[in-house]
């Protein structure tokens, strides 16, 4: 069926309408469609052709294309503004389309630690989650099975688990073995890093082929992305409509129940999709934006916003890292994912420093083709270029790390009344700044990294510190969960306090964000939300 033949009219008798076809929306759709419900998913972006992935990889590698070109981001549809102290490059941080941001994610999947759910009671920071690790543990196991996680139970710092990983972990890299010697001297434990990436053929997808371009595109499909569960949901009867950005949510006369969402088709026609239950799964920026765009007489500050918390407490993880040159080959850039980390310092949290984790990178420096294609290189071509590549490629080594950011009310997503998107709606305005706590956390991570680099004998020539840090593109906290309707947006079952049939499956419900990549927790919460919606139906 060509794009022009796609039926984008509403489904007549939907039990569930889901906004967003990323990992959360796809998992909820699959779970509820499998239970026999009539499910419709509305996705703002397009359905990408899987046969185009090598071409997208080439766009990533060749310098004539920007990072937003790989997945066709940017332009009036995706307009946004910044108002905070720190610039937030939003369109580099997300993908709109069937599969969502998992199309360009790295594929790192960790369970939050028990302490992450109790940050307030343990360290006086932020708020405690209204649920604990125990509540999420079975959903974490289900999420690992659904995504297909390659991992090993060798991380002494990870929270308890009751079952093995679905696939064996990827073996450590050669450069991991270099780091291991230094870490052993320093008493730092390394362990495997769980990957949502096939270490062997699994779930109808191949093992990793080693293209080395995981982020932003995996041509082989070995890396999990949400198109997997979109396909499974469709096989169970769910309907997924692409290129239909939802414009607003409409409630009934009482203001307590959502009646419909209004969406626009590519030709500008607006339709109303009615349903019994609505699940918002459009990520930590577009969910608060949609709620704010849907203000009404009964909800003058935006839907589900009686607390005033919609859009507030926006958090990301901060990158800390350093790299340099070793006087020996390091064998980088064969793969684009991480095989070893250290979470040894993760729970060394106190009143002044937050959690951080360390990553031992397998992709330090520039790849040969990057050097070859760049007009910044000294040599243009020929023998001189080959020599320059040998000099710049072979001996690079680097570490990364993620540092936690506590929730702050002033970090938020609002509507910019002065800038509108292609449908005339105010665009999201990002207010983002850093505080002393995350600066100190970054300094702590840098100190540990410097000790390891020094022990290894690396000539360090770049550092990402508190002054130069940037976001890890994890949008959390903007419709946070809680038991008190005066200070949170959704309850522990992920339903909004204010509307009795509106649910949120997203990192936007995180109360605190820890310092671990959020997608496994997003998936676990999505499965929990699906159970709750099922019970409601």
């Amino acid at each position: 069926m060509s794009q022009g033949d796609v039926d984008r009219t509403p489904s007549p008798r939907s039990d569930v309408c889901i906004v967003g076809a990323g990992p959360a929306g796809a998992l909820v759709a699959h779970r509820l469609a499998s239970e026999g419900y009539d499910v419709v998913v509305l996705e703002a972006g397009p359905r990408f052709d899987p046969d185009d992935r090598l071409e997208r990889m080439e766009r990533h590698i060749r310098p004539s294309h920007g990072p937003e070109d790989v997945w066709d981001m940017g332009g009036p549809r995706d307009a946004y503004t910044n108002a905070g102290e720190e610039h937030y490059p939003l369109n580099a941080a997300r993908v709109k389309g069937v599969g969502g941001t998992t199309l360009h994610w790295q594929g790192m999947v960790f369970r939050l630690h028990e302490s992450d759910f109790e940050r307030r009671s343990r360290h006086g920071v932020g708020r405690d989650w209204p649920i604990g690790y125990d509540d999420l543990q079975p959903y974490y196991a289900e999420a690992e099975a659904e995504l297909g996680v390659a991992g090993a139970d060798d991380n002494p710092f990870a929270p308890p688990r009751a079952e093995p990983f679905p696939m064996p972990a990827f073996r450590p890299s050669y450069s991991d073995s270099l780091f291991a010697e230094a870490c052993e001297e320093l008493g730092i434990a390394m362990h495997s890093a769980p990957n949502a990436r096939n270490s062997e053929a699994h779930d109808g997808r191949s093992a990793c082929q080693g293209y080395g371009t995981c982020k932003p595109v995996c041509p082989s499909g070995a890396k999990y992305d949400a198109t997997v569960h979109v396909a499974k949901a469709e096989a169970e009867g769910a309907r997924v409509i692409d290129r239909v950005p939802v414009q607003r949510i409409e409630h009934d006369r009482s203001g307590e129940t959502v009646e419909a969402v209004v969406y626009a088709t590519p030709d500008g026609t607006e339709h109303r999709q009615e349903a019994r239950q609505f699940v918002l799964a459009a990520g930590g920026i577009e969910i608060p934006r949609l709620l704010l765009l849907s203000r009404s007489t009964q909800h003058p500050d935006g839907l589900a916003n009686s607390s005033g918390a919609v859009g507030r407490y926006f958090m990301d993880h901060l990158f800390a890292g350093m790299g340099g040159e070793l006087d020996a080959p390091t064998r980088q850039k064969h793969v684009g994912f991480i095989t070893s980390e250290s979470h040894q310092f993760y729970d060394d949290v106190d009143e002044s420093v937050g959690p951080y984790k360390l990553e031992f990178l397998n992709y330090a420096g520039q790849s040969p083709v990057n050097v070859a294609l760049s007009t910044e290189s000294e040599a243009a071509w020929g023998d001189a270029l080959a020599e320059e590549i040998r000099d710049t490629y072979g001996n690079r080594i680097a570490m990364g790390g993620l540092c936690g950011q506590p929730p702050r009310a002033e970090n938020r997503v609002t509507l910019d009344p002065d800038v509108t998107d292609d449908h005339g709606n105010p665009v999201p305005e990002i207010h983002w700044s850093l505080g002393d706590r995350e600066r100190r956390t970054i300094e702590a991570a840098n100190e540990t990294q410097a000790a390891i680099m020094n022990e290894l004998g690396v000539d360090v020539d770049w550092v990402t510190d508190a002054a130069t840090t940037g976001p890890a593109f994890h949008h959390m906290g903007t419709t946070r969960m809680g038991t008190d309707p005066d200070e949170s947006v959704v309850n522990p079952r992920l339903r909004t306090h204010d509307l009795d049939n509106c649910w949120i499956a997203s990192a936007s419900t995180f109360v605190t964000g820890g310092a671990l990549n959020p997608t496994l927790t997003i998936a676990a919460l999505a499965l929990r939300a699906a159970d709750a919606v099922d019970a409601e139906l």
Partner: protein
Amino acid sequence: MELTRRDALAALASTGIVVGAGAAALSHLDDRRAEPDVDVDTLVAVAEVLYPSEVTGVREFVETFVAGRTADRPDYRAGMADALAVVDERAERWFDGPFATLDREDRDATLRQLGADAIPPDPEGRPPGRVRYYVVNELLYAFYTSPAGGSLVGTENPIGHPGGTTSYQRGPDA
């Protein structure tokens, strides 16, 4: 180091051109070897400047690669043909002969005088940007995403090449 058609097929695997490794794929490309628009002689002559001098078998590599790259992509073929015409026209103007007939030094000078050594690639831009995109970066991409090109600079599994998940575990002496 000698490049072969098999190296070109490996390079094509990094570009969205799906070719199996078998004989069927080779004969499939044979049918498309003679694309009328693209001046393969000029393209090969450019590659001989861009690739390290120890590399041989450039013609076979480039012919196979460009046949796969331009098959069923008329717009891309037209862009490449147009850029190669620019290269040849400048060679005629500055060095009084077709690019492919010039010695290595004059070919190098032609490309540099064009600005193709320093200008950002731009498929829709002015001639030098198009030469950088369709000719220079095209050929460098083919070479340095292939195991043959990668091996010459230290990696048998360069990014863009589906070289599996064992090479990253190996040390330099393995």
